């Protein structure tokens, strides 16, 4: 659809063919996270291949969002390691030692990931087009005309070509979230992290946002990690589904395996409660 999108990451089929041989795009090993006195992540291991779409499901407080926020270093992990696109999140390896990254280095490392938040978090003092072009101009140092052209394409693609000059306060929640997706896509990350992107929306607005996400999953070739309560979306789009509860990964499998034929009682109980 948009030529700029197809060039941003290795094509999906190629990634699928090489999945067993290449290093994973996201590799999470023995990760634990402690906030003060409460531990929210226990011994998390998960590999996500390039081009894969993984949905994280589970009850609230399971640590899904925290895990996602550790991947782009919005939260610092307490133990273990996370690699994204081969490099260790938050550290530089040199001569057998790990050097903590300075904030500006961490910022550069973060460019490999994009994030979409539950509360959209659009910059309130900027129009849609300014929201989308801002980081491309100030962080990627793209020439302004190029950034604007790319942003126009993306806003058209999420169905908001007519709202380019609107401020977030003039948009519905669903429209804001679609601008937020365009804003993250503009940076051409290799991994997109969606943190409950539809949970704050009115029910009738959820469909449009899911439609955009489906489009991204199918055509962008990016690696997607989606924390969601939309089981229909997970079933339809996810290559794999991860079920988490109380800070641990309970089971991982294809959507069919986890959603239709869960191996654990904990998963069964959750699905029964959600799908009721």
């Amino acid at each position: 659809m948009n030529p700029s999108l197809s060039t941003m990451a290795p094509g999906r089929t190629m990634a699928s063919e090489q999945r067993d041989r290449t290093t994973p795009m996201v590799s999470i090993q023995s990760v634990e996270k402690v906030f003060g006195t409460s531990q929210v992540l226990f011994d998390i291991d998960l590999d996500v291949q390039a081009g894969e779409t993984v949905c994280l499901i589970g009850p609230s407080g399971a640590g899904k969002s925290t895990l996602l926020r550790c991947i782009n270093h919005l939260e610092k992990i307490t133990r273990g390691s996370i690699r994204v696109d081969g490099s260790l999140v938050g550290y530089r390896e040199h001569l057998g030692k790990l050097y903590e990254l300075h904030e500006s280095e961490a910022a550069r490392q973060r460019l490999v990931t994009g994030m979409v938040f539950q509360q959209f978090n659009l910059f309130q003092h900027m129009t849609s087009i300014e929201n989308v072009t801002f980081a491309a101009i100030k962080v990627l140092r793209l020439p302004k005309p190029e950034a604007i052209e790319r942003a126009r394409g993306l806003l058209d693609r999420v169905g908001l070509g007519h709202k380019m000059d609107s401020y977030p306060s003039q948009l519905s929640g669903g429209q804001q979230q679609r601008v937020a997706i365009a804003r993250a896509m503009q940076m051409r990350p290799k991994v997109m992290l969606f943190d409950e992107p539809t949970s704050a929306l009115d029910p009738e607005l959820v469909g449009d946002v899911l439609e955009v996400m489906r489009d991204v999953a199918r055509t962008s070739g990016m690696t997607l990690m989606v924390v969601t309560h939309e089981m229909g979306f997970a079933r339809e789009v996810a290559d794999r589904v991860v079920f988490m509860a109380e800070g641990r990964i309970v089971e991982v499998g294809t959507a069919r395996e986890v959603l239709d034929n869960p191996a654990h009682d904990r998963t069964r109980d959750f699905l029964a409660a959600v799908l009721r």
Partner: protein
Amino acid sequence: MTGRASVSRPVAMHAGMEVVPVRRWGRQALAVVVAVVVVTVVYGFATNPNIKWPVVGEFLLNAAIVDGLLGTLELTIWSMMFATLIAVVIAVMRLSDSRIISGFAAGYVFIFRGIPMIVLLILVGNLGLFFKTFSIGIPFTDITFIAIRTRDLMTPFVASIIGLSLAGSGYMAEIVRAGLLSVGRGQREAATALGCTPAATLRYIVLPQALKVLIPPMGNEMVSMLKATAVVSVIAGGDLLTAALGISGVNYRTIELLIVATIWYLLVITVLSIAQYFVERRSAEK
């Protein structure tokens, strides 16, 4: 005020019957009292034989007074500028993760908000009494690059600007801090997730949004600063009040010259208030 109650309104009719409005006796009585007080005060000033009103008119556009007025405006603008700059720096330091840096900022606010402005001004104005020279060099060594006698550097005008800036920045730092905190965490996280450094996040995302919250209280600070400049007359800072007192020291027309100063202060404040109204309305439209 009193006129409003006595205006005859068309008689209201409901369901074919006349409606008797509530009689607010207390409010009407108070209105009368207030009116009497106002008239008495104004009459008292206007007819007081000890106030020579022609003198007020004579000195309103006196060259020294106009000079003083310009001095007051200059003091206000410079002090406001420096105070705002310092306030932003202190507010950002206050939010630092380093305890030493945020502690310094807290101490700064405590000290300069705690010292009465008049004390601060006299201290700064007389800095030459206890620091004889002002020098730039390497601390705790004898190496100096520049040394100036404090007396030459610290003219009353400079001392006034420094005193006013320090005092104002203490208050403003707290206002700016509140403004910075009013920008939600999500805004900062979104910028961070897009690869912004903390400095870029502050400059492009937090400060512009904080500014909107800051405009009304900073406008008030500007008015306060304008009024505070009168205090610099204690070190003869070259402001409007200094000029007025200088003249009255010669002709003994103290009240008349204070009235002259009052008229100018109110005039400038009126202009500032109107400007603030328009700035606020513009920023509210966004």
